[in-house]
């Protein structure tokens, strides 16, 4: 280090990574706007198409559809952004540069995950607002409980995103196929956890059921049983940790095969 240079700690790193993500979000809004438009287009098709076909039956379940769709846009956005981001870092050669630093890629990846989560919360909240206006529905919910429950639900999907990103590091071109995985989240969001309790251990499923209660019935976090909250946290931590472990293992394998920087 030169005479004038001083060390950067984790706080400086946090500021740098979050600042970079914020800059890109503000400076290049086209992706976010495009995502909002496409999500709303599909919601309009579902809403008006459903009204034509199902009439009153759809009106009765519109709250559930809006909440489910909100959680799906949240999870699909978080998953796609983290897995695509890792793929881009590999393609650009910046992943290798991150790995050969005193911090390593782990804290940067974690901070990127946090940033993507915040970013998708912003876009999904806009989508939620538009859906409520389009469908003429209103929801009464506690914002803090909603953020915590939705955030923990989506954390499990971030883990899946890390795993998919890791597989992309190893097999490169498979990334576009793994993108299709986000459509599978529809099944997880609408999983019948009451009828089949074991489905609660899958990502999103248990969180989605809790979010329905939070946003439709106004249930607060402390009104849930400790077991329900504990399972929500365990699923979030388990999938996030497991996903990151897969990312580490696939990166290690790519380093062994000498294909980390190849694209």
């Amino acid at each position: 280090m030169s005479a004038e240079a001083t060390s950067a700690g984790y706080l400086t790193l946090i500021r740098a990574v979050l600042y970079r993500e914020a800059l890109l979000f503000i400076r290049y809004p086209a992706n976010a706007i495009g995502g909002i438009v496409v999500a709303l287009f599909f919601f309009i098709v579902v809403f008006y198409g459903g009204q034509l076909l199902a009439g009153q039956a759809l009106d009765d379940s519109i709250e559930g559809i809006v909440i489910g769709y909100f959680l799906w846009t949240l999870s699909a956005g978080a998953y796609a952004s983290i897995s695509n981001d890792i793929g881009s870092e590999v393609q650009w050669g910046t992943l290798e540069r991150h790995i050969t630093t005193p911090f390593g890629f782990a804290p940067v990846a974690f901070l990127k995950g946090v940033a993507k989560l915040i970013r998708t919360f912003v876009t999904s909240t806009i989508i939620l607002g538009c859906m409520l206006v389009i469908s003429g529905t209103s929801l009464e919910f506690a914002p803090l409980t909603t953020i915590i429950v939705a955030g923990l639900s989506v954390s499990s999907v971030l883990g899946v995103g890390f795993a998919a990103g890791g597989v992309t590091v190893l097999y490169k071109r498979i990334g576009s196929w793994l993108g299709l995985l986000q459509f599978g989240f529809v099944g997880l969001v609408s999983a019948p956890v009451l009828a089949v309790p074991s489905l609660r251990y899958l990502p999103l499923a248990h969180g989605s059921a809790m979010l329905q209660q939070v946003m439709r019935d106004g249930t607060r976090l402390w009104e849930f049983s400790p077991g329900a909250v504990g399972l929500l946290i365990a699923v979030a931590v388990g999938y996030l940790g497991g996903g990151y472990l897969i990312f580490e293992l696939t990166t290690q394998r790519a380093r062994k095969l000498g294909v980390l920087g190849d694209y």
Partner: protein
Amino acid sequence: MIECVLILMQSQSASAQTALSVTALSKQFGRGETAIQAVDDVSFEIHPGEIVGLLGPNGAGKTTLIKSILGTVIPDEGGVNIYGHSVADAPRQAYADVDVLFEGARNDYWRLTVRENLRYFATISGVHPDSVTKEHDRLLEQFELAAEADTPVRSLSRGMKQKVSLASVLASGARLLILDEPTLGLDVAATRTLRRELQRLVSDTDRAIILSSHDMSVIESLCNRVLLFVDGDLRADTQVESLLNSSETQHVELTASPIDSATQQRLSSCSQLVEQDDTAVRLRTKATTSTLCETLNHLEMAGASIKSIETTDPDLESVFVELTSDDS
């Protein structure tokens, strides 16, 4: 006991003075008949204040060696220590002392501006960006990028992007710099600036630099020492001067009166035509008795008069060609 402690202290002091220590490093890709031995049992040390050139033809294993040193390719055998820290066992400590410019990689974020990139990569390299702002400004000035400081990197030319990557690595403060093809896309002025900056870094801050390049003039003018690789094998580890002195490729340049095309044809077996105009022909031959005599015989038979005979010293490029093409 005291002797053991002294030996331990000596060995620790020696490793502290070694910027990079590579021991019996090997890496093979693939298996069976199609296996490629990219790096074959390579050992060497680099000390602070040294600029070491990494030479070798395409596919010689230079980039694999660099990536194996950094651990982005995990070697099959052998170890790497950077300022006494093992890359395999203590990567974070080892990486605190090294920064790298990867060949062909983008090395930067194109959607960020030049200055944003410099600040971001300073931070992840463990340097507080505010503490190197002056150094960034100075390097941007040196590389004639000051006017582009707030321009997104994607809008810059190929050479300018390379300058941004170089400025980012040079300002990192790492005590060991590894530069893989740093002159790629650089114009003459920028190459000259790079030479000046590298010389300044070594003389002022005693850093160690590994320079892998196909630009022989850069290697010859900057490096004290070269490592020559052929087929993953470290063929030579020597001072540039020793390499030049050991060469057998000293040449003789002859200038004679013009010759016809039939004579040119006959001479092609023993000499190389450099140029011919209305007044003279210039020929180059190897400085061996047989080739020189054969050339002179052909010229005499054609009735050409010899105007001058000069011997020329080999440059690094000709030595490199000699060592890598003969497989000697």
